[in-house]
């Protein structure tokens, strides 16, 4: 069996003793695009911040994160610094505050280049110009000397992508990369992301609560709820046939683009407070299909089809229910 690019097993994170990530398992093959969806606070970002050692010190992290088979969780700082930006790059939600306001773009871009490539002097600057060209910042030579506040939000996100590409990473983690941007700019940034991914053969993790964005850009999708992955499936299958009641709820809340108009469904209730998790399945209190056994034990991810897993003891019932609705 080929070693996956990233293999996360049983990743737990707690802030001041309150668990926010409760046993996340996720693998990522070279070059593939995986979407991570779920409500705010479900642990999408925390999973990757924890994997890369970017959480504040009061967070306690346990489990295993392997990159090409090598454990990076708790690795020495020097090794992590080589991984971050070099093997795995990350871009964030709010581009406006993601760049250092007092340093020029050149300084920030060249810093990444100097750290991860054997370049120096003029070569660094030339490469920085090339990266800005690549991400579509016009007049790169002059713009390198500008400060972040002199760019628009979309442009800053392009610069962030350029910076992420500086180390030729094998994986780009894009944490809500378009949430803070206008719809038209969103589309441009996503287009840019998929074109650089094709060109460089990078894998990508797209963290988003926008299911449409994920459906268009990802091969596989993992749905997270309350610090766990509850369903993992190829993107087309998940959107056509979600099995976990939560995934069904998310997709049911989306207006369909074709077919007859239907009433959008909402998931009743709210996400449970991490400090007061219900026993058993965390989704049970909001779940229409919940039965008595749901409150007894936390369901584990179980295969239901090729390359599909779901953490729901009512998966079969849920599937039938869905088919029943479809048949009506």
């Amino acid at each position, binding site marked *: 069996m080929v070693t996956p690019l990233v293999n996360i097993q049983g990743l737990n994170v707690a802030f001041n003793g309150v668990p926010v990530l409760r046993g996340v398992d996720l693998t990522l093959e070279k070059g593939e695009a995986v979407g991570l969806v779920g409500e705010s606070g479900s642990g999408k970002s925390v999973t990757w911040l924890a994997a890369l050692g970017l959480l504040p010190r009061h967070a306690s992290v346990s489990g295993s994160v392997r990159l090409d088979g090598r454990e990076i969780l708790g690795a020495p700082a020097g090794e992590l*610094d080589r991984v*971050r930006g070099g093997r795995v790059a990350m871009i964030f939600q709010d581009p406006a*505050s993601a760049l*250092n*306001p007092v340093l020029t773009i050149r300084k920030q871009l060249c*810093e990444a280049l100097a*750290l991860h490539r054997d370049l120096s002097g003029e070569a660094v600057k030339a490469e920085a110009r090339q990266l800005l060209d690549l991400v579509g910042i016009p007049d790169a030579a002059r713009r390198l000397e500008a400060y972040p506040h002199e760019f628009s939000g979309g442009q800053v996100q392009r610069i962030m992508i350029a910076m992420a590409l500086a180390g030729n990473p094998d994986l780009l983690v894009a944490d809500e990369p378009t949430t803070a941007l206008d719809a038209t700019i969103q589309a441009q940034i996503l287009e840019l992301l998929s074109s650089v991914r094709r060109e460089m053969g990078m894998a990508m993790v797209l963290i988003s609560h926008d299911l449409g964005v994920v459906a268009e850009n990802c091969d596989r999708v993992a749905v997270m709820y309350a610090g766990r992955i509850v369903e993992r499936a190829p993107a087309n299958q998940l959107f056509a046939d979600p099995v976990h009641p939560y995934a069904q709820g998310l997709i049911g809340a989306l207006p369909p683009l074709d077919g007859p108009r239907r009433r959008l469904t909402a998931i009743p209730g709210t996400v449970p407070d991490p400090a007061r998790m219900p026993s058993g399945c965390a989704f049970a209190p909001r779940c229409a299909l919940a039965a008595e056994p749901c409150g007894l034990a936390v369901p584990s991810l179980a295969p239901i089809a090729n390359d599909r897993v779901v953490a729901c003891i009512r998966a079969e019932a849920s599937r039938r229910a869905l088919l029943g609705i479809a048949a009506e």
Partner: protein
Amino acid sequence: MGRYLAIRIGRAALTIVLVVTFAFVVLRLSGDPALMILGPEAPPEVLAAFRKAWGLDDPIWFQYLDYFGAIAKGELGRSMRDGRPAIELVLERIPATLALTLPAFALKVALGIPAGIYAALHRGSAIDRAVMMTAVAGFTVPSFVLALLLVLVFAVQLGWLPSGGQDSWRHAILPIATLSLGGAAVLARFTRSAMLEVLGQPYIRTASAKGVPWRKVVTSHALPNAAIPTVTILGFMVGTLIAGAVVVESVFAWPGVGRLLVVAVANRDLAVVQCILLLVALTMVTSNLVVDFLYGFLDPRLRAKGAHA
């Protein structure tokens, strides 16, 4: 940038005029220098002659215009006590004051800033708590209390250091310690909160995410941003170099500008008080101007705003 500067300098000049005006009016409303200097038993005709000689019987607006006219010619008046030019009296005291305030300033910076940075980087640690407790104590205890405490311990109990006077460098230790402890505490607290604020910013996470080693994240990403609020406090401290030691000089009988000010106020020695206040206003305003400059230098966003202002 040129306009930005012109506006700042204009405002600075206005501040100085206001300070001087305020001092001028308040001093003249708060007591008669003739009575203060000659005493209440002096014969009325002597008092009248004194007032006439110093122009104190002129209407206040006339005195005021006269005063500004003299300043324009570079004359700051004479001391009513010994007739020497006020500026001379003040200037000869400045070295003594700077002998306290300059080392104290250096100590504040050398202690306060590293302590603040360290506390921020080790937030919640025992050292952080110790630094913060010291800092709170340092700026809640008034300087005269701290001064007396230090005298009590190091001069009275232990007998290691003199309690007052200006005979040797050992006499300067307690006043300098008093001045620097409070300032260092203020600086440590400010630096710490500035650092904490900056360390929580997304761009710090970005820097870590691109593989910048933590030490460099702190030095080249966090410190330049944290410097902006810290420089404000430093500006205030530079502004107090000339007359920031009034209380401490009084407690330790140190013959600096601060003591001169206290004596001159008590005597209503108008020219001397006005001269000192003018000097204080000048240093304060100049250091604020320098701070404004530094902002532009440290923060490119302000530079851009200044250019358009």
